[in-house]
């Protein structure tokens, strides 16, 4: 394992030290709880947005804290959900009287820890709601399983809901919006290489030179199936087809699209992928209203990419274009 770290056990807290000095103008870090706060949190009268999850997905979530996006992000160990104490500290730290929305990715650990935190916060009478993002079409949804994972839609949702909260919408409205966005968000990902969890010290899985993993999440897990390595054009099809099949909308609609790198794929390849994805959407009669191409929700140094589509209407495009000022996403300010 070759990583620019000092101690595998200390990766998260040391990265937070770096974030704090790099972005001290906009962010504040609670090192005890490993929570990244917007510098001016809590903002009175504004619904607080809290997200969090395992680390290793940078810039998510700490990099999405700031004006027009999150008020706080809880940083768990690498690929490990944070603990309720962290979410509680974040929740009480951002509550400006208008309540707090937890944005939770659908993983057993994340859901349970956020649930425990919400129970604790309710005792202290902060009004807490939560939305669970579950947009990964690689996973069959069913009542009898853990359901779909939360992946790329999380990024777009945090931006969109962040803008809504910034504009003064109520906790009910913000929660409704978040639920609606999750309902029209779909993602699918693939990996060309494994990543190495620092504490594990070796790659999570081995993959041949002629293979890739299709239907991966964001924790360096193996995917739904192993398929032969293929061209960008075919890889795009492998990602877009299952999304199109699953979309609760289609021809004539427009979307916010993201082609996301898993951390180790160069931007030049992501642009090739975006070209392919765009062509497939065009063929399906879907217009891209806005897009992101880059590393937005990653799995350490994994090579690979994912595609996310969120149906866009005028309201969402307006929220998308609203100012955002975070380390990971910034415009309009």
């Amino acid at each position, binding site marked *: 394992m070759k990583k620019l770290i000092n101690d595998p056990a200390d990766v998260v807290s040391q990265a937070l030290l770096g974030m704090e000095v790099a972005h001290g103008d906009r962010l504040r870090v609670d090192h005890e709880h490993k929570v990244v706060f917007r510098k001016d949190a809590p903002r009175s009268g504004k619904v607080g947005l809290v997200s969090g999850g*395992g680390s290793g997905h940078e810039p998510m979530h700490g990099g999405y804290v700031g004006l027009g996006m999150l008020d706080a992000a809880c940083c*768990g*160990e*690498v*690929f*490990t*959900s*944070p*603990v*309720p*104490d962290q979410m509680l500290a974040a929740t009480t730290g951002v509550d400006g009287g208008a309540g707090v929305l937890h944005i939770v990715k659908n*993983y*057993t*650990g994340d859901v*349970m*820890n956020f*649930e*425990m935190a919400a129970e604790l916060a309710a005792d202290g009478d902060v009004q807490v709601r939560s939305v669970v993002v579950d947009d*990964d079409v*690689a*996973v*069959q949804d069913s009542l*009898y*399983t*853990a359901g779909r*994972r939360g992946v790329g839609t999380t990024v777009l949702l945090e931006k969109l809901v962040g803008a809504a909260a910034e504009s003064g919408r109520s906790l009910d409205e913000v929660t409704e919006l978040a639920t609606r966005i999750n309902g029209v968000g779909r993602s699918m990902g693939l990996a060309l290489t494994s990543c190495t*969890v620092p*504490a*594990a010290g070796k790659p*999570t*899985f081995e993959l041949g030179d002629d293979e890739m993993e299709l*239907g991966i*999440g964001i*924790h*360096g*897990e*193996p995917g*739904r*199936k192993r398929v032969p390595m293929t061209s960008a054009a075919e890889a795009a099809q492998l990602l877009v087809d299952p999304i199109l099949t699953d979309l609760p909308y289609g021809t004539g609609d427009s979307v916010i699209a993201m082609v996301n790198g898993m951390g180790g794929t160069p931007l030049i390849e992501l642009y090739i992928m975006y070209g392919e994805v765009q062509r497939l959407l065009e063929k399906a009669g879907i217009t891209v209203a806005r897009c992101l191409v880059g590393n937005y929700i990653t799995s350490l140094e994994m090579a690979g990419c994912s595609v996310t589509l969120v149906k866009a209407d005028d309201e969402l495009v307006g929220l998308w274009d609203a100012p955002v000022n975070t380390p990971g996403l910034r415009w309009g300010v």
Partner: protein
Amino acid sequence: MGDTIEVAQFSDWMRRYAGVIHENAAMLTELDSAIGDADHGSNMDRGMSAVVAALEAGEFASGADLFKKIGMTLVSSVGGASGPLYGTFFLRFGGKLGDGPVDAQALGVALRAGVEGIVQRGKAEVGDKTMIDAWAPALEAYDAAAPDGLDAALRAAAEAGAGGRDAATPLVARKGRASYLGERSAGHQDPGATSSVLLLEAAAATLA
């Protein structure tokens, strides 16, 4: 070893488990690499080191006190799926212990309460390929052997837990991270079931 358990023995159990987890952390993480995200060993190791530190720092008058602390410590330090699950287990387990010495039957009641806590949190059933696949047969075996005393009951539980763990290996996971793998999860041993059996084995070695 008598037929009731002292608070000190509970501490021994936890210390022994912490040691066993530390020794087996790489193995647990390896299992979690195959069908999860390669952190179960480090998660449990981090949690049990925190538990040992809590044991050093505090005095505990009763098993109830001790396990309340342990449950809270795990909830606050592990994260992931295993943090809330093991945390809830010990909180509920401790909640049933009462103040006095604990006999085989009382321990059985506490274990069952702990496992019910896991089920409540995680909503897994036997056959979902989770730690529940170890715990469910372990509880049954425990109850069946409890009349023969603590030692017999705990040994039976550990053995049945191991059997349940192994029986889950061929299954396709329906809960937890392994469920995302679909058919590919079959043939792999569940990390949480494995750490649960280690807990039962440590109990058999320290509580009877």
